[in-house]
């Protein structure tokens, strides 16, 4: 793969994809061009008064846009005024950016007393209402364009300083900066080579969002008579002069305002585009936010096939990622069944589509950009993917519930544990608030949280990781679900805590089984997702191995771990480390798992498989071996045939 894109080129391409910012850029270019050629345009001198032609309305001969109180040509004054405003605005922006960024960079990098000293000063400036500080500075130095510029620049320094300091602080702890320091880079080297290039985008974004402001502010000072002094034409002062004539000659004040508006709008349009391209945090703002349910394309009718004994039956599930007009498959015809009371493990390496599978089951996969293009998910024989939203919402959290990987991110940070638990209880059961509170308490003790009464009032960040995950489990079990989907619930936890949580989950599952009369039918079914084969063998009866969006092997946990049939499962087991096994692992699987959209055609594993042959380029089906094991590999097809 030859990558010809340099960062700069990529920036322009992405910027131009945003049509509005292109418009802004064009408008700005036009204004710039006009200002540049103004001296050579056949226009009257902007400062020459001609009292005979006072207050001409626009479109009079010789004066396209009319004249002002002193008979000066408005078009000419507007163009010259724009020049002044632009120059002042940009010089002020650059000055503020330079000084502010320097302060921010130094404060953020050195921290300690240098930081506190610099930031105390900055904070003091920030404690003034913006405009007021500018006024105060002008008051000291006296009205005038240069003083106004100076005032505006100073007022904006804190803004740059704060933003750049924040960005610097988050970068300083980044590993590449640490690596450079360990590599012997001097302070200057770290600042110049590691930090600055990575902070530049932040500075550019800040410039692009403040430039418009600065122009407005300079215009404002001139409007008040504190900036440009007569006879200099400046958009703000023209407006100020026109104000007195609002009742008689409104165009004198309307026009300069319009020009400011157009100028600043184009700056802001461009700025928005630049920000969307450069600021990764805001890039989300340009993306569409996920809808309440995943978009489901085809209208497949529920199973025409034989009724299955499965609690949750997944057939042909295909989920795609829509990116830049391209549909990249993430899941390809995923098929499996979850029996009542069974715990099924779904394993595979990062990016193989485990989470997408989990989320697709209750149409929770982020949509856009994901969409389910075919397949059904049947809960007791009813396709839930195509239910109306309200009915689907009645199933979520009641009959099918979820536990996710990162318990800190999945809990709402500003609500207490109790509030979040009670919420889900009352959503699905009509209980009084007192009864639901008691229910929440009993759930918390069921997941073995010590002193549940006090924990009810705690916020998520006040609990340890293991405790948070217990809360998530309590939330998931609150309405006695039939199916529990757990997406790597223990991956973020320390191994001793993981063992506790696994044992808890296992116990909770067993108790549900014991409590029910008809054991097989009503037990809690669990889909347990993990990348750790050890965890699987701890709590799953069955396991499905996933690779590149497909299930490649399915069967009893014990037997798969003892005698894997698929080459991928074999290789994966071979490179899984076992504590105390006293054997050295030899090398892993060559290459890396394919990225989404880059799944090879035919067998997904054919780029890394030792036994791959030319027939592996053709699609391979999941076939059932006599042992009951299901395998997706041509080698086994032959054996079976």
């Amino acid at each position, binding site marked *: 793969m030859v990558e010809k894109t340099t960062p700069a080129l990529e920036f322009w391409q992405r910027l131009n994809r945003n049509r509005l910012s292109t418009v802004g850029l064009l408008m700005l270019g036009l204004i710039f061009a006009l200002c540049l050629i103004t001296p050579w345009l056949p226009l009257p001198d902007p400062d020459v008064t001609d009292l005979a032609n006072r207050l001409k309305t626009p479109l009079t001969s010789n004066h396209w846009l009319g004249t002002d109180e002193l008979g000066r040509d408005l078009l000419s004054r507007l163009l010259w005024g724009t020049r002044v405003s632009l120059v002042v605005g940009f010089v002020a922006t650059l000055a503020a950016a330079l000084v502010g960024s320097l302060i921010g960079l130094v404060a953020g990098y050195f921290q300690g007393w240098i930081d506190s000293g610099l930031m105390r000063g900055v904070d003091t400036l920030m404690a003034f209402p913006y405009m007021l500080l500018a006024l105060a500075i002008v008051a000291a130095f006296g009205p005038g364009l240069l003083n106004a510029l100076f005032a505006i620049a100073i007022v904006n320094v804190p803004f740059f300083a704060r933003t750049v300091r924040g960005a610097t602080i988050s970068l300083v702890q980044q590993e590449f900066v640490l690596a450079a320091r360990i590599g012997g880079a001097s302070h200057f080297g770290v600042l110049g080579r590691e930090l600055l290039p990575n902070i530049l985008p932040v500075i550019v974004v800040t410039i692009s969002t403040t430039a418009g402001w600065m122009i407005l502010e300079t215009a404002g000072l001139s409007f*008040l008579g504190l900036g440009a002094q007569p006879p200099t034409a400046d958009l703000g002062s023209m*407006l100020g002069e026109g104000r007195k004539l609002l009742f008689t000659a409104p165009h004198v004040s309307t026009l300069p305002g319009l020009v400011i508006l157009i100028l600043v709008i184009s700056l802001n349009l461009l700025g928005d585009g630049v920000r969307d391209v450069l600021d990764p945090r805001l890039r989300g703002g340009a993306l569409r*936010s996920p809808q*309440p349910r995943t978009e489901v394309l085809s209208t497949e009718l529920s199973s025409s096939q034989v009724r299955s004994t499965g609690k949750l039956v997944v057939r042909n599930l295909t989920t795609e990622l829509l990116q830049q007009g391209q549909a990249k498959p993430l899941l390809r015809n995923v098929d499996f069944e979850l029996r009542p009371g069974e715990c099924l493990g779904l394993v595979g390496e990062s990016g193989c589509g485990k989470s997408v599978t989990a989320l697709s089951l209750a149409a929770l996969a982020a949509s856009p950009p994901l969409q389910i293009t075919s397949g059904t998910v049947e809960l007791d024989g009813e396709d839930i993917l195509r239910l109306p939203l309200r009915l689907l919402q009645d199933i979520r959290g009641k009959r099918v519930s979820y536990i996710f990987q990162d318990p800190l991110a999945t809990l709402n940070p500003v609500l207490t544990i109790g509030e979040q638990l009670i919420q889900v209880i009352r959503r699905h059961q009509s209980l009084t608030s007192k009864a639901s509170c008691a229910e929440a308490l009993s759930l918390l003790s069921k997941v073995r949280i010590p002193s549940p009464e006090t924990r009810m009032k705690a916020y998520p960040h006040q609990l340890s990781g293991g405790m948070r995950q217990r809360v998530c489990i309590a939330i998931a079990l609150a309405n006695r679900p039939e199916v529990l989907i757990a997406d790597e619930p223990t991956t973020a936890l320390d191994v001793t805590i993981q063992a506790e949580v696994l044992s808890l989950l296992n116990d909770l599952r067993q108790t549900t089984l014991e409590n029910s009369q008809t054991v097989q039918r009503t037990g809690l079914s669990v889909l347990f997702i993990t990348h750790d084969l050890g965890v699987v063998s701890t709590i799953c009866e069955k396991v499905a191995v996933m690779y590149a969006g497909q299930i490649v092997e399915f069967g009893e946990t014990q037997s798969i771990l003892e005698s894997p049939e698929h080459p991928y499962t074999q290789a994966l087991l071979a490179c899984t480390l076992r504590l105390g096994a006293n054997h050295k692992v030899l090398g892993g699987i060559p290459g890396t798992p394919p990225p989404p959209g880059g799944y090879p055609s035919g067998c997904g594993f054919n780029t890394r498989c030792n036994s791959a042959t030319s027939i592996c380029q053709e699609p391979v089906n999941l076939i059932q071996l006599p042992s009951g094991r299901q395998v997706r590999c041509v080698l086994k097809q032959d054996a079976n045939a």
Partner: protein
Amino acid sequence: MLRYTIHRLLLTIPVLVGISVVVFLIMALIPGDPATAILGAFATPENTTKLRAELGLDRPLIEQYFTWASNLLSGNFGRSYALNRPVLDELLERLGPTLLLAGSAMCVCVLLGLISGLLAAVKQYTWVDQGLTLFTLIGISAPAFWLGLMAVSLFTVQLGWLPASGMYTPYGDESLGDLLVHLVMPAITLGLVASSVIARLTRTSMLEQLRQDYVRTARAKGERETAAVIKHAFRNALVGLIPVLGLQAGFVLGGAVYIETVFQWPGIGRMLVNAISTRDILLVQGGVMIVATIYVLFNLLADLIQHALDPRIQQSHG
């Protein structure tokens, strides 16, 4: 909470000291002799000597500051020679109108900003969103004073609905109704402009929150969409927006300078502009000091509200 409030109140003291130093420096920075500059047209030798002694201009800068600051604390803001009255009297008279204008503008700003931002985010990329986006784009790009002028030319000149200037009709009965009629245009103009920033930030922040894991959790719990959006996403977005609202108070107080000028509103802003033109430095100092203090208090309030809303900072402050 009480401990935090006290802690936070104490923290405003150094900020106020910092502000007073900056305000003091304004006088120190004046090129030439401050006394002459301050007195301007009233600079008789006699006046100059008196003022010099009053300000202690012959003493070191530090000492001057302490004299000045202790005067401030005892309510002595000096005397405006141009107006021929104590600065404090003038300030107190004009404080009310400014607070009224800024307060009502703030209400407009908060309500309008939050609601339209929320709406735009939820209806992302529909005509509602695009309309609001265009509207707020104009809001952040148009000079507030120009919008004021345009409003006057529409509602006063063309339609004749609203009065163009002042707080009350001259020689009128100064009734509440009269006040409101005069307040509508300036407050809405100022609030509208200020709300654009809030609306845009609310939209971005909401979009960011909507893709957080806990919103997905809310959906996985079967919450209705309105609940997921309001109870979960918006609640969290609000936590981040409160300090911005505090900052926006600064924008409103600063913007009041223009709006008071445009609408001839008898507040501190207009007084400041006049004072700067006449180089009435003591009046400027007093005005800036008062408005900055109001702003600091506003930020204090925002901080306390945020503190009450966000459990995470509660812990880090203890």
